[in-house]
């Protein structure tokens, strides 16, 4: 009777070791700085994890052919970086960067090809005479037309619930509120929820999120619906009209904030098309130590549409910064928002 037990144990051990061999890890080069290997690693990371190939109609295999021939064993790390960065630029994605000790690549055309539409000093000087309040990354004040103004430059700044109470209480007598998120390049999605919670009274659908389920370009999960809850009882909520002021540099988490706020009946989106950036980024790295960041999870709006290409202003609310008026100390976009709230 002993032999079968020993046979079972031996077979189990062999089978386990054989199965473990199926858990393949990516092969590493003998030389961690080898240009061809690092180029291939970068291409493969994007090939297996990037989430917008189909949406952006990018043939990643063609991209490989186009750029791999520019890689040679003799090239310097900086030359390799330039080739890799150019390859990533094919994705036209502001969330996709390559980071080396000497440089970080950045696809800038998503905003550089558009008017900036924001001059911070114009507002601070000519509308507030540099006399405004600041708390927790938020600047705020009252405009002479009895309109509250909140400037939130980055969703990276944590928003305190008590801070928000003070801000909204200060503006409580205003007939409307302007939330200026021009040049807001994003940050933490949790701050989006915190801010949105002050403008809703019931749990509100915020959109969908979907992730890759495997390395194939079309391997995606079913979109998962998520929602935001209103601020807790006792916190100040805002139910009067709101204008969200945006420009092309309103990006990533700020873009997400716009996609949620635009569905609220009391909210108008004023300005220019936002920059998009609806892919939540992942990080990875190459054997030479460089880091890479890329869009990995697609966040959709409440109607299941991607906002990667940006969000248009509300109908009739598209407006750019008038350079001539700016010379006279007027922000034509802010003036438009004020007039909209005064109607």
């Amino acid at each position, binding site marked *: 009777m002993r032999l079968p037990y020993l046979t079972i144990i031996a077979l*189990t051990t062999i*089978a*386990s070791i054989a*199965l*473990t061999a*199926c*858990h*393949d*890890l*990516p092969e*590493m080069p003998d030389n*961690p700085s080898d240009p061809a290997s690092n180029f291939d*690693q970068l291409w*493969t*990371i994007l090939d297996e*994890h990037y*989430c917008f190939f189909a949406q952006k109609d990018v043939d990643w295999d063609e991209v490989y052919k186009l750029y791999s021939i520019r890689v040679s064993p003799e090239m310097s790390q900086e030359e390799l970086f330039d080739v890799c960065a150019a390859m990533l630029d094919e994705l036209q994605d502001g969330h996709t960067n390559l980071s080396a*000790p000497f440089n970080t690549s950045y696809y800038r055309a998503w905003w550089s090809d558009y008017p900036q539409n924001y001059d911070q000093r114009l507002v601070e000087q000519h509308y507030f005479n540099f006399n405004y309040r600041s708390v927790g990354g938020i600047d705020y004040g009252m405009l002479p037309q009895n309109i509250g103004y909140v400037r939130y430059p980055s969703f990276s700044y944590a928003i305190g619930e008590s801070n928000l109470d003070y801000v909204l209480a200060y503006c409580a007598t205003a007939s409307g509120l302007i939330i200026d998120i021009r040049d807001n390049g994003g940050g933490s*999605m949790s701050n989006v929820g915190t801010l949105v919670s002050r403008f809703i009274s019931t749990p509100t659908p915020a959109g969908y*999120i979907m*992730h*890759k*389920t*495997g*390395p194939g370009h079309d*391997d995606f*999960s079913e979109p*998962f619906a*998520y929602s935001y809850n209103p601020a807790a009882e006792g916190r100040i909520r805002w139910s009067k009209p709101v204008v969200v002021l945006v420009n092309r540099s309103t990006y990533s988490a700020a873009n997400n904030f716009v996609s949620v706020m635009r569905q609220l009946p009391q909210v108008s989106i004023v300005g220019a098309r936002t920059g998009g950036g609806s892919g*939540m*980024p*992942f*990080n*990875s*790295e*190459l*054997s*030479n*130590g460089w*880091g890479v*960041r890329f869009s*990995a*999870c697609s966040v959709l709006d409440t109607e299941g549409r991607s906002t990667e290409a940006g969000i248009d202003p509300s109908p009739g609310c598209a407006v750019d910064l008038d350079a001539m008026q700016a010379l006279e100390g007027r922000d034509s976009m802010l003036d438009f928002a004020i007039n909209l709230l005064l109607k």
Partner: protein
Amino acid sequence: METIRRLSVIIAMLLPIVAYGGRPVTSAFSIEAGASRISDTYLSPLPYHGWHTGLDYERFQAMRHNPERCIMRLNINATLDRTLNPAGNAAMWQAGVDASWAMMWRWTLRWTPGLRVAAGGMADLDAGALYLSRNGNNPVSARAAVTLGLTAMATWSTRIGRLPVTVRYQPSMPIIGACFSPAYGELYYEMALGNRSGLVHVAWPGNRFVIKNLLTADLRFGATALRIGYSGKFISGKINDIVTRYASHSVTVGVSGEWISLDPRGRNRSSTPDISAYY
């Protein structure tokens, strides 16, 4: 000194877990230090290498219903690793706790005096996390598994000169259970939003192979013993196309002892000889 005194009291409280009826408890506290290699493709495709350290508590006792043949083992192991990527410019931390309870049937081999073997089943809870600081939205990869498995043990009691020594080899391997894994490209943020589907998987050696090896020698100086040895843990898994690999090799040093609690009223003290689960 106050800290040392308090620590001594805590250890003293843990070591002599109450034993009745001549079934002494063998308890051991060990520290371990060595090297580890970690890969987790959710965080990075690169292997990380570095140091490994840990604390280990182990407790043996013969079981009440059949103390000659049945023994149980409780093991709690807490580990901490710090590893670097091949370029040396990013650090990955690992912290985890592995707790198991095993019940083994043991045999004394007549033709090899001093050698005893035991084998049985175990229940294991392994939980921990990897943290890679250079990653923004995906800095953490959590590990959690509840499994049933097999363990075996061979102990050989001998002497080096006049010094009693007990050498033990113990492999352990989870066989079946449940484990946690995110989807291939799923952010923990999405889980926090409420998407918990598909996070729990059946764990078996085909998708999560784990083996732990323990080789110790207890040098018995009177009532307590100095424990020295080797501890190794190997995990290889592939779930949702995420490949994880963890291997640690460490030297262990600790103190072990056999303890028995006596009821001052003498009601629980057995008249039969003590039956040690370990020595």
